């Protein structure tokens, strides 16, 4: 598990395209940094749950990054982690009550995982490694990118699990009546297998993209 976040901050304060895209592709919180795994696996048994979870987490990430970045010169270093946790917990409580008011079915489907956004290491990690050191604009853009990256990753996993486990997407049947659903995909082991499968795919793709010269060296070392 490599925590690359923070090492790649460019010294000037301009908002570049890379600030935004970083979270979507190169440092994707789920597929590359492996942060915040618990909700990723627990609520992705259907696409609609994945979207709700992705959006709630993105909102908390965006709001807490904004506030942490605004208050970065006010918070004493010794108590910074505790302050970040309180800020995050406040926004999570807001989201928790909002979802309860909007759709009780969704609230029951997601269960305790809405409240567990508090201990999502991706959000605390962003607050500590990025928002507490960068000006407002950059923090907000970066948090938005990370949120979109997280939501896309949830969609990738939720899509595969719902398609294979239920033969449908967003509740609409896609694969026809003759399709025998793979029930295992909706059960806990399916979550582990699908995420493992995506990671294998990305590792294979990265391996293929390596120039032939470096690959020859690797072979030689063995």
């Amino acid at each position, binding site marked *: 598990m490599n925590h690359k976040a923070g090492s790649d901050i460019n010294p000037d304060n301009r908002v570049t395209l890379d600030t935004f895209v970083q979270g979507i592709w190169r440092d994707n919180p789920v597929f590359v940094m492996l942060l915040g*795994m618990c909700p990723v696996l627990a609520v992705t048994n259907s696409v609609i749950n994945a979207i709700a979870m992705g959006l709630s987490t993105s909102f908390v990430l965006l709001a807490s990054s904004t506030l942490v970045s605004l208050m970065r010169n006010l918070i004493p270093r010794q108590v910074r982690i505790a302050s970040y946790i309180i800020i995050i917990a406040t926004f999570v409580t807001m989201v928790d009550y909002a979802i309860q008011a909007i759709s009780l079915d969704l609230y029951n489907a997601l269960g305790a995982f809405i409240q567990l956004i508090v201990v*999502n*290491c991706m959000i605390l990690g962003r607050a500590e490694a990025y928002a507490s050191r960068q000006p407002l604009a950059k923090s907000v853009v970066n948090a938005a990118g990370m949120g979109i990256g997280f939501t896309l990753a949830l969609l990738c996993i939720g899509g595969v699990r719902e398609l294979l486990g239920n033969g449908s997407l967003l509740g609409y049947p896609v694969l026809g009546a003759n399709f025998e659903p793979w029930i295992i995909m909706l059960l806990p*082991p399916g*979550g582990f297998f699908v995420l493992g499968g995506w*990671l294998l795919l990305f590792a294979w793709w990265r*391996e293929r993209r390596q120039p032939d010269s470096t690959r020859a060296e690797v072979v030689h070392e063995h």
Partner: protein
Amino acid sequence: MSTDTLSFIFFNAMLANNFVLSLFLGLCPFLGVSGKLNTAMPMGLATTLVMLVSSVCAYVINLMLVAFDIEFLRLICYIAVIASAVQLVEMSMKKMSPALFRALGIFLPLITTNCAILGLALFQTNREYNFTQSLVYSIGAGLGFTLAILLMAGLRERLDLSSLPKITQGAALSLMLAGMLSLSFMGFAGLGS
């Protein structure tokens, strides 16, 4: 079978609804510290201890929150309690076993952000367990976590010695292993969930 007998709560939390393998709670330490058996064991026991302490504290705090009608502060209070419990375990471990303290390193304070512990506190509140039930629930969940992390560490120590294709090394392999373990733990579902 009634669902609130103590033995049911214990075995359900430990096996049938194992926190790591069927509820997906506490995956970070599960994947992070399961490389070696001799660090996995103390990690499991430290987590169990924190679970026990924070479960008792969460029970008392929830009584107070309900009495004063300020339940919206529940999340913030629980997090503060868990952070203090972790601090307590950290200090006593530093005093009793400095070698172990060094071996666990950064993963000891990170127990605070282990969602299994906050999850435990929230579940016991949602299910309105009484004091004894909460206690038994937290011990069962802690032992279940220890069991899962020990099994995982044993498997990974064996796999270190085998030759595997390059792309499967690392996180992908750990997740596939966890999937297999989760599959085998589904066999406990007959314990009545």
